[in-house]
Each structure stands twice: as structure tokens, then as C-alpha cells.
């Protein structure tokens, strides 16, 4: 079965090729095969497959990867807008920082 892909041209993922040392740690942790490596420099191979989980940027020892990490959960966004602590799923959001403090994504698996 083909991989499921979400919306086009929307993710905030960036690679700073000047900083990249080609250690490929980001390739290892990416759950959607977004990144590729050419001549010891990482590049974005499949941007639309990125889900902004932030694994790559968290594990980049030289800060070459950047992404506004968060969990793509509509319920969490709504709860954040309403200033509620989520209860429906584990998508509880920190109302002060709706894009950071979520416990969701695949809430229940």
C-alpha cells in the first residue's frame, strides 16, 4: 500500500546544509523517510511526508535541522483555541503554547 501523505507544501522543515556534517542521525530517526543524503549533506527528499514530529531537529548534534515541531491533532488545536485542557483523547495542550505541549499524535496506539 502506498504511504499516506497529508497536505502539500505546508511543513516548516528546513535543513541548513552549511551546518550539516552528514552524520545521518536525522535519517535514522525520521519515521517517514523524508530525508535523503547526497555527498555527505542531508537534503529534503519528500517534504510532504513530513509530520513535524521534531525527531530530526532534536537529534541533530549541530543544529542543522529546524522544524516547528508539534502534533497534528485537530482536537488539540481546538482545545487550545478554547483554552481547554483536552479530555477526549490524550491531546492535552498547554494553552499558553499550543504548538508545543501536546501529548497526542497517534494518541491511542
Amino acid at each position, binding site marked *: 500500500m502506498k504511504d499516506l501523505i497529508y497536505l*502539500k507544501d505546508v511543513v516548516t522543515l528546513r535543513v541548513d546544509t552549511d551546518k550539516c556534517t552528514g552524520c545521518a542521525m536525522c535519517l535514522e530517526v525520521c519515521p*517517514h523517510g523524508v530525508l535523503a543524503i547526497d555527498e555527505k549533506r542531508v537534503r529534503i527528499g519528500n517534504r510532504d511526508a513530513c509530520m513535524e*514530529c521534531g525527531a530530526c531537529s532534536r537529534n541533530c548534534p549541530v543544529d542543522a535541522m529546524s522544524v516547528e515541531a508539534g502534533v497534528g491533532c485537530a482536537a488539540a*488545536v481546538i482545545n487550545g483555541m478554547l483554552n481547554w485542557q483536552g479530555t477526549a483523547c490524550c491531546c492535552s495542550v498547554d494553552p499558553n503554547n499550543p504548538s508545543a505541549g501536546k501529548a497526542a499524535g497517534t494518541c*491511542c496506539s
Partner: protein
Amino acid sequence: MKACANDSSNKQGLLPMAPLVACAASDSEVPLRPPRLEQTFVTGSVAGPSGKIPQVLSVLKRLDHWGSIKARWGVGRMHYAVDPGLYALGSPQECSPVLVTANYKMSFDCLREALPGRDAWILVLETEGINVWCAAGKGTFGTEELIRRITASGLKDMVKHRDLILPQLGAPGVAAHLVRKQSGFKVHYGPILARDVAAYLDANLRATAEMRRKAFPLRERAVLIPIEIVATLKPAMIIIPILLLISGFGGEEGFLRNIAHDGIFSLLAFLCAILSGAVLTPLLLPYLPGRAFTSKGIAVGLPLAMVLLYAWGPDLRSWRNILFGGAWLLLIPALSAYLAMNFTGASTYTSLSGVKREMRWALPLEIGAGLSGFATLLASRFF
């Protein structure tokens, strides 16, 4: 047992222990207690430097399975946790691998069940009963907590190597290079699925490309359905009586006769919308048109609404029926779309930026269709 096979790789990286991060002490004033031996799934204990370490088996008991079923249906799910700390799976030695997981009991059970006949250390992090991926996104399955547990568990005295195997989906919360720097332990990201861990260990800590990809197969989508349905129960308890009540008014027949006709249809239509958004959309996800979940929800909800109305076969010469049918033609797709949109949180591939973009057009559409549908439903009662 192959655990000692990669001893050679352990000699590297014995960095001096850096002083513990400042927050370790200030964050939690409570001293980190070792996991209790009295937990139902603990079968024995092994001796550790500072007391007994609970021992577990890879075979799950009936109680463990029952707990999983309940958690899938949302019963006690928020507290379905094991004590954090170090556990012994089988009879691990000082060269046995150390596997790190979350303290959501289903995560813990899943891991040990995947390692029959193996000996390993399982280091459980305090994630407040939330699974690895969610907890990593939140940061509770994170660098600080990992370092804290390494220290508190006395792991350094239990194993002579300095390697930890973490699930790949823990990576959003853990910075491997910082763990190495601050604890001396090297983080190896293992496969995404627990069922691949044995193969990963046998392959000398190498995962295939396939093990590193998060797919979203039918089975995984299906197990999420119960919790989606449970989430609709509470609002449904309020909405259903209101729908029945509304349906009773107006018309030439009496209140109760109206409820028996239009009320039952309203109930069916409402359940149909839930079926569409919370059951059929997740099941058919890859085959539905559009990338936005809202589109997928409409793609199921609209045809379903038309089939339902066709089966009802109203007399279209009356305004009452035209408006009533029209209302549900709006309400079913709107509700289905909304529930489908909320399934983004359970899916494994939606980005926050994407969800925000979808919501910018989808939420007004869903609310608009919902409100005009409801207004039409009310209007139909005046004929």
C-alpha cells in the same frame, strides 16, 4: 543468549559522568523510588545494588490482556501505568541489552511480549501512563527523564556496557548526543515496532529501512475506532434527546407519532454520521479522495446521507419533508467531516502546520453546514 555479542561497541564512549542537569533535583523533590514488587505482572525479583529489581516474563497474563481491552475502550486509560524504573525481563546479566520504554502499561506489555525467551533490562520512564510517541512529543519521554532514571536505577552498576536501546518513536523527545554527554550512555534508536526488536538485536543493532517507517495499516486504524466512538458518547447523550424532542413538534400528527417517524429517522441519521466519521473514514482512509481529513469525511458522509434519505423515501410534496431531509443532507456530512478531522490526532502522518491549514477552511465549513442544517431542521417543524 546473544546479548554480549556487541560488547566491542561498548568500549567506546565511556565519557566521564557529567554533573546531573540542574532540573533533575529541582524538578522532582520526591526521591525516585524503585518500581514496586507488588505489581500484578511482576513474577519475582533479581538482586540489585540497592535492593530488589522486579522481574517480569514475556508471557502476558489474562489480566494484562483484559487491561489492554479496557484501555482501548477508554476505561481507566488515563491511569493505565506501571511504576517507572528498572525491570528485569527473564534473568538479565551485566552484558544484557537495556531497552527503554514508557510507563503506559500497553507499551511495556507490548515490548516484553515481543521478546520471548530473551533476557534484557527494561528501563521504564515516567510518562504519566502515555505511550512513547505521544510522550516524546510532549517531552515527558525525554532527555532529562532518561538521564534521571539512569541515575536513579543504578543502571551503571547493573551493566558493564553503556548502550541503551530506545524505540525510534522516542526520538522527538530525546537528544541522543546530550544523553551521551551527560550520562555516558549511547542511545541506539531501535525499530519503531516492538515486534521488530528481536530481529534488531539479532542483527547487531541494525534496523532495516522498513522497520524505521511508520505505516498506518488497517489493523492499527481499526484498533483506534473504539476510542473514537467512546469520545462521541457524551455529546451524543445530550444531542439525541434534543433531536427526538425537536422531531415531535409541528405537522398534522401528534407529538408521539412524530417522534416515532421523524424522531427515529433523526436518531438513525445521527448514528449514521458517527459511523461515517468515526468508523468508516478511519477504516477506508487510504482509499478516500482528498488529502484533508475533512474531504475524506465528506466523501463518506454525503453518499451515506443520500442513501439514507433515499431509503427513507419521503413524500417530497410537503415542505416539512423537504426541509427535514435537506437538514440531514447538511448535518450528516458536517458531523462526519468534523469527526474525520479529529481523527488527525490519532493518525500517524499529519503535521501540525497541515492540520492548522486544513482547519482554516474546514472548521468554518463544518460549523456553517452544522448550524444551517440545525436551523433547517428547526424550520421544518413549522410546516
